[in-house]
C-alpha cells in the first residue's frame, strides 16, 4: 500500500499520530512530516478504505487539541510556573561570608541546587511530547 500524503502542515504531531493509530490499528505503522505535508505510512494489508480514513483524519485534525499526556504535561508546567518565584537577583555564595564557613557552604549548596533546577526545567521543556 503506497503512503498516503495529505498537504497539511499545521498539526499536533503526537495527537494526530494517536488519532491515526486508534482509527487504523495494525495497518498504521507511523507518520512523517516534511515538505509534502503529512505522510501516513500503512502496511500492505491496508485496504483502500483505510487510505480514505487516513486522509479524512488528517484533514479534520485539529492542531490545537492536545493528547491526554500533553494536557497533563501542560498542567504540570503551568503549576510549576505558578509556584516559581522570579528572584530579580540571586545572591552568590560569597555574599554570605567566606569560603569554609557554615553559611557560605549552605549558600553554595542552594546555589548549585538552583542551577540544577534550571537545567531540569530546560530538560523538561525539551522532552515535551511532540
Amino acid at each position, binding site marked *: 500500500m503506497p503512503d498516503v500524503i495529505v498537504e497539511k502542515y499545521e498539526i499536533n504531531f503526537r495527537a494526530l499520530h494517536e488519532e491515526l493509530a486508534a482509527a487504523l490499528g495494525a495497518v498504521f505503522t*507511523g507518520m512523517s512530516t516534511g515538505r509534502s505535508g503529512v505522510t501516513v505510512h500503512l502496511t500492505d494489508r491496508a485496504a483502500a478504505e483505510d487510505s480514505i480514513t487516513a486522509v479524512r483524519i488528517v484533514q479534520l485534525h485539529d492542531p490545537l487539541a492536545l493528547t491526554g499526556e500533553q494536557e497533563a504535561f501542560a498542567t504540570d508546567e503551568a503549576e510549576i510556573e505558578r509556584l516559581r518565584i522570579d528572584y530579580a537577583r540571586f545572591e552568590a555564595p560569597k555574599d554570605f561570608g567566606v569560603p569554609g564557613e557554615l553559611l557560605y557552604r549552605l549558600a553554595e549548596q542552594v546555589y548549585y541546587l538552583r542551577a540544577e533546577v534550571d537545567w531540569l526545567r530546560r530538560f523538561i521543556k525539551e522532552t515535551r511530547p511532540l
Partner: protein
Amino acid sequence: MAWTTPKTWVADATLPASDLNTHVRDNLDALKSPPSDHHELNEVADITTSSTTFVDVDGTNYEFSITTYGGDLLVGFHGTVNESGGNQQVHFNIAVDGVDVAADDGLYSCYGLRQGVGFVYKLTSIDADTHTFTLRWKVQTGGAATLYAGAGTADLDIHPQFWAIEIG
C-alpha cells in the same frame, strides 16, 4: 569517465598517444571525477517521523541516482536528530534501487535528545548501471524523531548531508 584496466607494458613496446590517453589520462580523469552525488537540506520545516518501519527521510532530496562503472561505493550521512522524550531509538538505513541494504534495525542508530548522527557505509560489488540511493529511517515504537533540516529552528538550523561516491 570509466576506469580502464591499465595495460601491461613490455620491453620495447611502442607508446602511441592513444594508449597514453586511454591508460594514463583517462584513468587519471576517472580517479579525479568518480560518479558521485550529494545533497544538503535547507528546508522550510524540519522532518519528523513516528514510523516503526523504514521509510524515506526525504524522497525528493535524499534520493538520487548515479551511474556507476561497477565496483564499490561509499555512502554517507551526517545530521542532528532529536527523539521526542529522549528514550527511544532512531534507526537509519540506506536503500539501493528501493531495497534496504540492511534488515532488522538497519545500519546505524542513535538515542536521545539532539544527537549528532554520522555514518559512512561501504557498498561492495555494485554493478555498472544507474542506481538509486535513498536515506531511510524509523523509530522504536512510541518514539518520534525529528531531523533538523536547516529550517530555522533556534540553535538547530543545521543542514544535514547525504552523499554517495564510487571508489573503485
